[in-house]
């Protein structure tokens, strides 16, 4: 029986001298995909899903006080304590406050009626809908605290109101108060809100007409789709633990959640199929090239057997060669994978999860060996079983 150290030397030298690049490449592709998907996949998926989720509105839910539907019930609104409690829940990404109704006022710009929908919002409103300042800035905590008379406009409203840019710095009169335009809000989720005028919630409660100017609408942006339904179940209990509340209405995108879930599942299946396909291709490549080299070296096998090699020696040699190629592919794949991860992380501005990468290396090598063993075993067994006389006669 050949000593393992000798076997390794023979196998590795030979494979390095006769590199099977095709096989190595296809395995490395599978391994690179595997490590890439497994290390950054979750982060990437979370990002993609959170975008998809945002578009589909599925991670946002609104809770509204509905006391006005019941006569003789005093107005209710969400307290700071309640909002803080929500902000500290693990599944909650952002919690913002707004008003159940908007005030609509009419003004005239050059013989044209312009309706202004006024909405009081707190500084977290923007985060919930992932809105940004298209021009100027958004409303912040200082505005909130100082109850400032400032406003942020949707772009369509700004165009209707003013002839020319810059809109920032212009003045808007609402109920005899002058509000300075500090910014124009933009973002995917603006939608019909491009016709809205946003003012600090505090300023709204000071100056707009009661009873609609309380923070009676809670906006929650959840971290993932899976966080939505559990919190809805617990909602009354959660709010009641902080404050008294008579009637609540919870709105969320139930059907969209199902759709987005399906999309995520399909993406998963696709990625898994990709990995499986390229690893399968690698195993097939190993199988093919092992058989090819058994055929190509039939006479050499005969000669080795003549020299006194045992069948097991021949088998181990060919299996070793398959594993060697698979591991070379694995190493190359790890390298490609890490490069890809670095590139993706850099492009997306994500931190590189080095620990996860290092933990994946042994898994990748094990997967590569498995591929090598899957593809290489049968050809190796065949090589070992070869009959010397016919091997030597093989043309």
């Amino acid at each position, binding site marked *: *029986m*050949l*000593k393992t150290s*000798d076997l390794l030397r*023979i196998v590795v*030298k*030979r494979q390095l*001298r*006769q590199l099977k690049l095709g096989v190595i490449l296809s395995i490395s592709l599978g391994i690179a995909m595997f490590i890439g998907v497994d290390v950054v996949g979750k982060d990437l998926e979370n990002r993609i899903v959170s975008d998809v989720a945002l578009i589909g509105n599925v991670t946002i839910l609104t809770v509204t006080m509905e006391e006005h539907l019941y006569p003789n019930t005093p107005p209710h609104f969400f307290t700071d304590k309640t909002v803080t409690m929500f902000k500290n829940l693990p599944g909650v990404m952002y919690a913002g406050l707004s008003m159940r109704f908007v005030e609509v006022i009419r003004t005239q710009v050059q013989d044209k009626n312009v309706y202004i929908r006024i909405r009081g919002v707190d500084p977290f409103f923007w985060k919930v809908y992932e809105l940004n300042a298209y021009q100027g800035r958004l409303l912040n905590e200082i505005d909130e605290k100082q109850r400032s008379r400032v406003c942020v406009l949707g772009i369509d409203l700004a165009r209707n109101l003013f002839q020319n840019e810059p809109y920032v710095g212009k003045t808007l009169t609402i109920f005899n108060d002058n509000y300075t335009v500090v910014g124009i809000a933009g973002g995917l989720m603006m939608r019909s809100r491009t016709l809205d005028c946003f003012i600090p919630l505090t300023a709204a409660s000071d100056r707009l007409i009661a009873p609609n100017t309380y923070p009676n609408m809670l906006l929650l942006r959840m971290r993932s789709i899976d966080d939505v339904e559990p919190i809805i179940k617990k909602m009354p209990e959660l709010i009641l633990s902080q404050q008294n509340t008579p009637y609540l209405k919870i709105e969320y995108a139930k059907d969209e959640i199902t759709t987005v879930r399906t999309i995520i599942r399909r993406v998963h299946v696709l990625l898994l199929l990709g990995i499986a396909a390229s690893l399968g291709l690698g195993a097939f490549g190993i199988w093919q090239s092992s058989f090819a080299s058994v055929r190509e*070296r039939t*006479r*050499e096998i*005969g*000669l*080795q*057997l*003549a*020299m*006194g*090699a*045992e*069948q097991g*020696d021949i088998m181990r040699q060919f299996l070793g060669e398959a594993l060697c190629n698979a591991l070379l592919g694995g190493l190359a794949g790890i390298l490609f994978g890490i490069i890809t991860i670095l590139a993706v992380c850099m492009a997306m501005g994500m931190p590189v999860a080095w620990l996860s990468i290092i933990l994946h290396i042994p898994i990748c090598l094990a997967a590569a060996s498995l591929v090598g063993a899957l593809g290489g075993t049968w050809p190796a067994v065949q090589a070992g079983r070869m009959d*010397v*006389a016919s091997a*030597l*006669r*093989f043309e």
Partner: protein
Amino acid sequence: MSRLRRTGMTVRYMTASADTAVEELLTAADIVKNYGSYQALRGVSLTLHAGRMAAVMGPSGCGKSTLLLILGLLQKPDAGTYTGLGRDLLSLDAREQALFRRRFFGFILQSCAVFSYSTVEENVEFPLMYSGVPRRERLARVMDLLESVNLAGKAQARSNLLSGGEQQRVAIARALIGNPRVLLADEPTGQLDGENTQKLMAHFRRVCDDLAVGIIIVTHDPQVADYCDTVYQLRDGRAIVA
């Protein structure tokens, strides 16, 4: 050859030459081999003594290679008896046969001279790996032997880049590295010109005389037969001593 003597082979030379009677290495009797209905060998008998060289000649397809494979325990005959070094070789199982080959036989085969993608040194080292000789000793023995076949300078060369004659010398070195008692060579001079054939045969003769190795050479070259002590003509499936 002086080098060869220093590598432990001299011991065997001494014992062999100390014997007055020449030791009988291989005795095959009435070997029959059929391929289906085709009778390749119909009762071949042959004896090989230590330090003797026997040629097996005959037209192409007469069964020379078949006979050599049977003698080398690489193929089973359908009938006949075969003893080697006092053992009934046909009763050994596959493992024991492998062990016997490793210990007592050296092969030079018709179809395959060298291992591809290997250096000369690795080629010659190969049989010693199967015998479990430590690497340091292996390399020393390989270098000694390569010197004796004038290939020491090419130890690190890729064997498939060598000329036909050089490859044949590698094959010889590889066949001799395990200190075999018997060398089985199938057309070792097939690829060589007249001058190289003579050099090779002279070399075989020295191995034979100095190391008391018994050699069987399959050939159809009369020039080769001239170097041999016995010449078997294989005809109609039987061997006749010429």
